[in-house]
């Protein structure tokens, strides 16, 4: 069983975030650090230091910003990262393919339309 850190949202804590266990990601010591600061304040401090990994090597391809986003905390991502917009560099030519599959009538085989006398 694994637990999620309430500060940095690291999802693979081996122990519950209590009893002086330390998060290997953000270094919060539960019961000590969070006695003095709220989890939100600790998160803001961790982000203020560019959200570094604390203990040993991080998991392969770990990314602190994806970790926050996947936990629904995208609003904590620095505002300069948010100034991105999707765009297309494609050129467009629009056309209407009106002649596809329409029968090509000639004068000889025009459909006979009954005409009232």
């Amino acid at each position, binding site marked *: 069983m694994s637990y999620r850190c309430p500060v940095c949202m690291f999802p693979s804590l081996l122990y519950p975030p209590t009893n002086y266990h330390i998060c290997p990601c953000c270094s919060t010591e539960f019961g000590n650090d969070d006695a003095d600061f709220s989890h939100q304040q600790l998160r803001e401090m961790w982000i203020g230091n560019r959200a570094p990994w604390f203990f040993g090597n991080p998991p*392969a*391809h770990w990314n602190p*910003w994806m970790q926050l*986003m996947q936990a629904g905390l995208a609003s904590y991502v*620095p505002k300069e990262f*948010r100034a*991105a917009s*999707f765009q297309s*560099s494609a050129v467009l030519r629009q056309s209407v393919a009106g002649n596809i599959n329409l029968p090509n009538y000639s004068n000889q085989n025009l459909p006979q339309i009954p005409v009232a006398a």
Partner: protein
Amino acid sequence: MLKPYVCVACEKVIIAQDGVASLIALFSKIILTIPAGTEIPRDAVAPKEWAVFSIWDPEPGDDLRKFFLCTQILYPDETQFGQIAKSKFNIEPNKRSQMNMQIQGFPIGQAGEYKIRSWIEENDKKISDPIQFGIEVIMNFTAAPTGASTVTPP
């Protein structure tokens, strides 16, 4: 074996109840507009949801096999961003398979062309050539705002 019919990146995919997919905002580049002097760290990610949407044509018998669609994102320097996403195909005979891989952020730590690469695996072995397309990240640096008000000389 499954044959690719469509594979694109877009901002959003809406799937109707009858399975018809609508793609919103197909994109090929991301423009980041930031003040001059702003440093974008190597691990930066733009918090924008996007998706890699693909459609595949099955061949007879494919519904009896277990295929996985793998999707990888590569930085311009060819290093990998995040884990390779793996998703199992749901295949029914004579029906196209639609795969929608939603991703919660786009890496922006390097300017240049990122590669989105998708391939099929069976029993943890790659059994198709990858489909690959590029998304360009462009950084536009604007003049840094000055805090002081300007004084016009008389």
